[in-house]
C-alpha cells in the first residue's frame, strides 16, 4: 500500500521543444526506496525528463504521477520534490546555514525546530564546521554536500539528482558516491539520478534506464543491463572498454547435448560457439551482429578450433590489465588481457570468445534471447 502511495510513475511522457522531440513517450516507474539512474549520452533527454518530474518543464503529453497523484499541472513549488543541480545552485548571498534553512520557510516551523533540522543534516553530511561560510568560500565537495543537505532538510516525497558527481575529482567522487548512497538508503524514498557516467549509474542505481534520442532503450538492473543488453546501442554504451560489435552471418545452428551451438562466418573465417536457444529461430544465412566484451576474449593457439586470427595493432597498458587492439580485415577488435600475457606489436594471434559470453543481435540490432 505504501508503495502505491509515494512512487513516481511516468506514462507516455513526451516533451517537444518547437520542432525538437526531446523526450518521446517515456514510461518509467520508480518505487519507494528505489534508485533509478537515467543514463545516456548528452542530448538524449534525460535531464529534460528529470525536469519534468521536478515541475521545471511542462510535459507536452503523457502523465506524471507522484504518490499516485497526477502532478502535470502542479508548479514545482507545490510538488514537494527535492532536487540537486549539476552546478549545485546554492544561494550565493546566503550562508550554508541559511541555504539549508531556505527550504523550510514554507513549513512555518519554529526557530528551534529549524535549528534542530539543520543540526541533524549538518551532522549526517559533516557540515558542522562550515555552517557560517558562504558558497564561494567552499570547495567543490563541500558545495556538493550542502546541495545534498538542502535537498534532504525537508521531507520531500522523492529525490532528483542532476549529474551529482560530475564536477568532483575522482577521489571525491568515490567518497560522495558512498555518502550519497548511504543517505539515500536511510531516506527510503524514490530517487532519480541523471548521469552520463556509467560507473556512477552502475554503482548507485537499483535499476538503470538507458536513454537515446528521447527514448528509453532499456530499463534493467545493473547486472542485467551488462549481461543482456537489449540492443547494439545499449551493448556498445554500457561497459568499458566498449563491447566489440562485429557484423557476421549465421551459417547454421544445431542442438548438442541440450545446448544450442551456432556456426558463424565472420571476417572471412568460420567459427562455432554455444549460443542462446533463441538463435535457432533465425534462418541460416541471416545477417547478425556479434557482441563480445573485450574481457570475454582469450588467446588461443592459432591452430585450435573456433578461433579468429588477427594481428596486434596497438597495446595500451592499464595497470593490472592491458587493452590490446587487434586488426582483421580492417575491423578493430578490442581485447583485454592480463598484463602478464606475452604479446608484442605485429604478432599474429588467435582469439576466441569465452563460453557463454557471446551476444547475438539480429539484423535490426535487437538481442536474440
Amino acid at each position, binding site marked *: 500500500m505504501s508503495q502505491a502511495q509515494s512512487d513516481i510513475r511516468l506514462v507516455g511522457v513526451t516533451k517537444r521543444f518547437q520542432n525538437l522531440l526531446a523526450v518521446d513517450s517515456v514510461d518509467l516507474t520508480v518505487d519507494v526506496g528505489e534508485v533509478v539512474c537515467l543514463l545516456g549520452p548528452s542530448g538524449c533527454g534525460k535531464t529534460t525528463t528529470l525536469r519534468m518530474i*521536478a515541475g521545471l518543464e511542462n510535459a507536452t503529453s503523457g502523465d506524471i504521477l507522484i504518490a499516485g497523484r497526477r502532478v502535470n499541472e502542479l508548479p514545482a513549488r507545490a510538488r514537494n520534490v527535492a*532536487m540537486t*543541480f549539476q552546478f549545485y545552485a*546554492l*544561494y550565493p548571498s546566503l550562508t550554508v546555514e541559511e541555504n539549508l534553512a531556505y*527550504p523550510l520557510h514554507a513549513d512555518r516551523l519554529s526557530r528551534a525546530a529549524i535549528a534542530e533540522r539543520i543540526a541533524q543534516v549538518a551532522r549526517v553530511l559533516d557540515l558542522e564546521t562550515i555552517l557560517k561560510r558562504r558558497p564561494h568560500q567552499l570547495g567543490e565537495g563541500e558545495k556538493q554536500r550542502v546541495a545534498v543537505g538542502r535537498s534532504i532538510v525537508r521531507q520531500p516525497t522523492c529525490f532528483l539528482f542532476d549529474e551529482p558527481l560530475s564536477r568532483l575529482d575522482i577521489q571525491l567522487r568515490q567518497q560522495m558516491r558512498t555518502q550519497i548512497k548511504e543517505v539515500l538508503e536511510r531516506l527510503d524514498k524514490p530517487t532519480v539520478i541523471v548521469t552520463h557516467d556509467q560507473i556512477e549509474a552502475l554503482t548507485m542505481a537499483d535499476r538503470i534506464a538507458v536513454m537515446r534520442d528521447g527514448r528509453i532503450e532499456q530499463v534493467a538492473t545493473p547486472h542485467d543491463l551488462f549481461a543482456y543488453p537489449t540492443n547494439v546501442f545499449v551493448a556498445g554504451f554500457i561497459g568499458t572498454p566498449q563491447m566489440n560489435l562485429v557484423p557476421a552471418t549465421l551459417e547454421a545452428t544445431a542442438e548438442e547435448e541440450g545446448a544450442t551451438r551456432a556456426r558463424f562466418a565472420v571476417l572471412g573465417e568460420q567459427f562455432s560457439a554455444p549460443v542462446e536457444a533463441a538463435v535457432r529461430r533465425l534462418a541460416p544465412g541471416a545477417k547478425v551482429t556479434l557482441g563480445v566484451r573485450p574481457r570475454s576474449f582469450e588467446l588461443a593457439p592459432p591452430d585450435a578450433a573456433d578461433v579468429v586470427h588477427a594481428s596486434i595493432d596497438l597495446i595500451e597498458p592499464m595497470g593490472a590489465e592491458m587493452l590490446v587492439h587487434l586488426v582483421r580485415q580492417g575491423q578493430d577488435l578490442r581485447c583485454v588481457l592480463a598484463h602478464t600475457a606475452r604479446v608484442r606489436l605485429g604478432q599474429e594471434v588467435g582469439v576466441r570468445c569465452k563460453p557463454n559470453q557471446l551476444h547475438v543481435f539480429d539484423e535490426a540490432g535487437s538481442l536474440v534471447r
Partner: protein
Amino acid sequence: MSSREVRSIGVAGWGRTLGAAVISLIYFFPVLFIILAAFKTRADVLAWPIKFVFTPTLSNFVSVFFRVAVEGGQAEATGFGLYFFNSLFIGGSSVLLALIIGTSAAYGFSRFPLRGNDTYLFMILTTRMMPPIIAIIPIFVLFNIFGLSGTYVGIIALYTAFNLPFSIWMVKSFFDDLDRDIEDAARMDGSSEWRVFRKVCLPQIYAGLAATFVFAIILTWNEFVFALLLTGTQTRTVPVQIVRAIGGAMGADWGLLSALETLFIIPVVLVTFALQNQLLRGVTFGTIRR
C-alpha cells in the same frame, strides 16, 4: 574580493606611477581650479598667473546663500538651500522610481520574454537615441496643458521616463547573467515566483543596482535643459541656478560660481565614494563566470 592583492609602488614601477599621477592631475585640474577659486577673493580669481597660494575666504560661500542685491542694501536669502534640496529630492526620487520600475521591467524582459521581446527592448532604447531636446516642444506643450509646469510631479515624472530606458537595459543585463538553476532550486524549495525574485534574484544584483543608481543620479543631477524650461521658482534645481548666477551687475562673479559648483559636486562625489566597491563590481558584472 577577500584577498585582493595590494601592490606596492615599487612593484608597479616608479615611472608608471609618476605617469599615472601626471595624467590624473591633468584630468583633475579643472575641478581643482574650481575648488580653489571658490575660496578666492574677486581679485585673486582673476589674477594671472594662476595663484595657488592665497588667503582663503569663505565670502563666496556666504554669497551663495545671501546676496546683497542693491548696493548698500539688505542681504537677502538667495534660496539656494531650496534649490539644493530640489536637486536632491527630484534627482533622488526620479532615479529611485526609475530603478524600481526598471528593475521590474528588466526582470520581466529577462525571465518572461514576450513574442517580439527584442523589438520592445529596441524600441525602449530608441527613445534615448535622439537628443532629448528634440522632444522638448511637445513636452513643453503637454506640461502646460496638464498644468505640470513648475511642479515636482511633472519634473520627477519626466526624469523618471528619462532614466527608465537605460535602467531597464542595464538591470536586464545583470539578470541575464544570473545562473537560472539557482532560481529553479528556489522553486524546488517551495518558493513562490515573488519570493524567487525578491529573495533569490534581487540580492544577487545589488552591486549592479548600485552601479545603475550612480550612473542615473549623475545624469539626472547634471540635467539642465528640461530643468531650465520646466521647473518654476519653487522647483528650480542647482544647474539652473548656476546659470542664473553667471549674469550680474558687475559681470560674472567667478568666485561665487565656483562656490556654487563646489557645493554642487559634493553629493555626487559622496555617492560615488560610498558606492565605489559596488560600482566596480557592477561595471565588471558578468565578466567573470562562475
